[in-house]
């Protein structure tokens, strides 16, 4: 029995060390706040070409070419059926009053629902395109509504905001637009 090969002393602690490492991983995963946001990988890339039909009688249709030239603009992905978009509408209106040009893409939306939404919550958009099969949404790497992209005058995507823009985030969005204009 005594001639049984002996493992080095440190190996005695190996299982405990592995277990401790495992505990650290699990606790770390539990403690870290959950984040389901999927960031678009299209930041810094040109806005893909698209041409969407108009979603409203009072606003022209939306074409990717509209983003070239002029100043940086916001591209807001929204829908009348999206609850946070209702909360976001007054914030977008405030941005519009601050001189920001906002174009909208309504995702999977019926024209009559859209008209009712714009009538009830306001229409801060310069142009509105309708994306009935989420084609443009997929092309720009957006995974939900609402999302807002900053597009610079060269038509490059500069920033993605996931979720509704809160009133206290207005200065941040204005900063992003200013950055995109430099």
């Amino acid at each position, binding site marked *: 029995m005594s001639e049984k090969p002996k493992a080095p002393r440190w190996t005695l602690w190996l299982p405990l060390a592995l277990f401790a490492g495992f505990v650290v991983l699990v606790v770390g995963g539990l403690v870290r706040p959950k984040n389901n946001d999927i960031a678009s990988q299209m930041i810094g890339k040109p806005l893909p070409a698209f041409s969407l039909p108009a979603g409203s009688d009072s606003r022209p249709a939306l074409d990717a070419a509209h983003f070239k030239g002029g100043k940086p603009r916001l591209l807001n992905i929204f829908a009348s059926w999206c609850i946070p978009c209702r909360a976001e509408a007054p914030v977008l209106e405030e941005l519009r009053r601050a001189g920001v040009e906002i174009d909208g893409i309504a995702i999977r939306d019926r024209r009559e629902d859209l008209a009712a939404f714009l009538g009830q919550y306001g229409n801060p958009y310069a142009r509105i395109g309708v994306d009935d099969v989420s084609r443009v949404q997929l092309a720009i790497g957006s*995974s939900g509504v609402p999302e807002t992209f900053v597009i610079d005058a060269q038509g490059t995507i500069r920033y993605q905001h996931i979720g509704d823009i809160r009133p206290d985030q207005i200065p941040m969005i204005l900063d992003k637009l200013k950055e995109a204009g430099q």
Partner: protein
Amino acid sequence: MIRRLSLTLALAGLVLAPALRADDSMPPAPWAYRQLPDAAQEAKAKALMETLRCLVCQSQSIADSDASIAGDMRSQVRERIAAGEDPEAIRAWLIQRYGDYVSYEPRVTSLTWPLFAAPLVLLALAALLLRKRFTGKGDGA
């Protein structure tokens, strides 16, 4: 009686739940729930859809999900396959937009290589620790 009542309530909940959810009322995209007429193309599309991750119902593939964005993705996958596009090109197109997140197909990257290296390292470690037992005088086992 009580059991039947609770069952009825549960079923009513299932029926009413979608009405309470914020979701669109548009019909599904053309190829969201329709198979391609060409069986070989449909098989290719199906194989790809099963390895693409739904963006809103994060633990399902787009083949399994009834979310409308998953339907739109399926429709686009089928359209592109029907147009002759290679499934891996479609996957690459999506990864370019959503990152590795969108694909269930594991890739070796600077972030994931430890997953592939770990089994080899563990095997080597085990061999190192147990080598005496294997090369012992025969009475150790």
